[in-house]
C-alpha cells in the first residue's frame, strides 16, 4: 500500500441541521471524512447518531448545511441539476435504509428503472437486471412480483440489485443487511467483498460487529461527530 490512492470521498466539516426539528440539535456537527478509491468501510454508531444523514450527503441526495464535499475531486455544491443527476446514476449506487422501491411496479421494473435514464440500449437492460438480481440471490420466481408483495429481506436485495445495475464505482449502502438472516447477510457481504476486489469503493452502515469485521475500516459516529476511525483487525497495514 505504498501508493496513496486518490480520494473518492472528501468531506470537510460537514454540518447538517434539519430545519423544522424543534430543538435545533444538528444531526451532523462537523464531520470530516476521506475515503479513497478501493476502500471498503463500515460506518457504525447508535441509532440517531447521524449515519444516514451523512450517507445521504455523501450520495449527493441531500446538501449539508455547512462544510464542503468533494466527490471524485468535484465540489458537489457547484454541480447543477443535470450534473448531479449524472453523478447519481453513473458514479454512485445507493441502497436506502427504507429500500424506497416503487411499490406498484414489479421487481424487474424496479431494477431496470435506473437504466431508463442512461444510454444503456433497451436490449441490454434485462440482461443486466437479471445479472444484478442473481448476484443478490433473489429467486427468479419473484422477479415478476410487485415489490410491495415482497418480504423485507427480499425488498432489501432488490434495492441492492437496483444500486448495482449501472455499475457504480462507489456503492453507499445504508444497513444493507439489516433485514437479512445470517446466511443471506453473509452472501451479500461476499458480494460486496467481490465488488470491492474488482476495484469499487464501498461504504456501508451497520449495527452488527460481525458485518463491520468483514470490511477493512470502521468509522464510528456518535451525536453527529466521528469518534473513532480505524482499520479492522487484519487490515492494519493501511494508513488509517
Amino acid at each position, binding site marked *: 500500500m505504498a501508493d496513496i490512492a486518490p480520494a473518492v470521498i472528501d468531506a470537510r466539516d460537514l454540518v447538517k441541521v434539519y430545519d423544522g426539528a424543534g430543538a435545533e440539535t444538528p444531526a451532523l456537527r462537523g464531520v470530516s471524512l476521506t475515503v479513497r478509491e478501493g476502500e471498503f468501510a463500515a460506518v457504525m454508531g447508535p441509532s440517531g447518531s447521524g449515519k444516514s444523514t451523512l450517507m445521504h450527503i455523501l450520495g449527493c441526495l441531500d446538501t449539508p448545511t455547512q462544510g464542503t464535499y468533494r466527490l471524485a475531486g468535484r465540489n458537489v455544491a457547484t454541480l447543477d441539476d443535470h450534473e448531479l443527476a*449524472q453523478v447519481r446514476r453513473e458514479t454512485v449506487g*445507493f441502497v*436506502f435504509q427504507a429500500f424506497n422501491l416503487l411499490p*406498484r411496479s414489479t421487481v424487474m421494473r424496479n431494477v431496470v428503472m435506473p437504466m*431508463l435514464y442512461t444510454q444503456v440500449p*433497451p436490449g441490454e437492460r434485462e440482461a443486466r437486471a437479471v445479472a444484478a438480481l442473481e448476484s443478490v440471490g433473489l429467486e427468479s420466481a419473484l422477479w415478476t412480483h410487485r415489490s410491495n408483495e415482497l418480504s423485507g429481506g427480499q425488498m432489501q436485495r432488490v434495492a441492492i440489485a*437496483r444500486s448495482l445495475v449501472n455499475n457504480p464505482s462507489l456503492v453507499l449502502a445504508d444497513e444493507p443487511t439489516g433485514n437479512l438472516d445470517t446466511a443471506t447477510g453473509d452472501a451479500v457481504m461476499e458480494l460486496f467483498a467481490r465488488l470491492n476486489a474488482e476495484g469499487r469503493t464501498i461504504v456501508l452502515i451497520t449495527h452488527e460487529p460481525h458485518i463491520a469485521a468483514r470490511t477493512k475500516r470502521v468509522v464510528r459516529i456518535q451525536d453527529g461527530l466521528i469518534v473513532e476511525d480505524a482499520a479492522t483487525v487484519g487490515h492494519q497495514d493501511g494508513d488509517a
Partner: protein
Amino acid sequence: MRFADLISETLHSLTSNKVRSGLTILGIVVGIASVIAMIAIGQGSQASIEQSIQAAGSNLLTVSPSAGGQSGPGARSFGASVQSLTREDAESLAGLALVSGVAPSAQGQAQLVADGTNANVQIVGVTPAYATVSGLTVVSGSFISERDDVANAQVVVLGSTLAVDLFGEAADPVGEHIRSGNMLLTVVGVLEEKGAGLSNADSTAFIPLSTAFRYVTGSQYLSSIVLTVTDEEQMDMAEASVEATLLQRHGISDPDYADFQIQNMADMLETVSSVTGTFTALLAGIAGISLFVGGIGIMNMMLTTVTERTREIGLRKAIGADSSAISAQFLAESITLTLIGGVLGVVAGWGIGFVAANLLGVSAVITIDSVLLAAGVCAFIGVVFGYYPARRAAALSPIDALRYQ
C-alpha cells in the same frame, strides 16, 4: 430518456393506478361534457324558437282594434270589445303597394257538439286568404272558399287537435255535422298539424267570416287583420302606409288617438331573439360554472396525485433522473389523461346534448367554439396542474422529496 421509454413509463404509471387515472379522467369528462351539452341545448332552443316565429311568418303585420282617444297604454283595452275595424278597412289595405295578402278575421268562443262530444273552442271567422297568410294547409277536404263567405255558408274547417277531440283518431270528419248554438256546421276540411307556435290553430274551428258576423260575434266588426308584406326589409314602410290608410279612413289626424294598433312580426322576432339570447347566456353561465367546478376537480386530482407521487419523484431523482426527465414524464401523463378525458368529454357532451335536446323537443346545436373552449380550458388546467407541481417537486432534493408527507 428515450421517447419509447417515456411512453412506456407513462402508460405503466397510468394503468397501475387505475382509480387515480379514472377519477382524473372523470373530472375532465364532466367539465367538458357539461359545457358542450349546455351550450348545445341553449343554442338549440334559441334556434328552434326563432324558427317557429319565422315559420309563422316574420313578414306579418297584425292590425287589431284598440280604444282610441285616450293616451297612455294603461288606458287601452284590447280585443274584440273595441269595434273599429271593418271588412272595408281590410279591402282598402289590399290595394297598398307593399301588401301581398290580407286576412281579416273575427273571433269568438263557441260550444261545439258532434256525436255527443262537446268542446268549448275558439271559433274564428275567416276569408280564404287566411290560409295563405297564416300558412295553414288542409290534409283533408278544403279550406273556407269565397263562395262559402258570400253565402254565409254553415261550414267549418277544424284544426288537427280539435278534429281528433271531436271525432277521434281514425275517422275522417269531412262531411260530418257539428252543432253550435243556432248553427249546424258541415265539416269541409281538416288542417295539418301546425305544432306549438304563436297561434293555436290546431285547436281552433274556422268558419266563413260572414257566418261568424251573423252567428258568433253578432256585429260587422273584425278582431284582427293580418297582412303579409312583400318584402321583409320594408316592414316599417308597409306598417307606416297601413297606419296612414287606416287613420285616413277613420278620420283621425293624430296617430296617438288611433283606434287600432299594428304589431310588426319583425319587431317581435327581435324581441324574442333577445329573450332567447339571454336564456342561452344563462345556460352558458351555468356551463361556465360547471367548467369551473370541473376544473377545480381536475386541479384537485392532479395536485393530490403529485403530493402522492412526490416520493416517487424523489426516488427517480435519487437513481439519476434529472428534473427535465421528471417534468417530461409528468407532462406526458397529464397530456395523456387530458387527451383521453377530452375525447370522452366531447363525445359525452355531444350525446347528452342530443338526448336532452330531444327530450325538450329542440334540436341540439353543437358549435365548434364550445368544444374548443371546453376542451381547451380542461386541457390547460390538466396540464398546468399536472406539470407545475411535478416541476416543483422535482426541484426538491431527493431526500426531501422522499420524506414528503
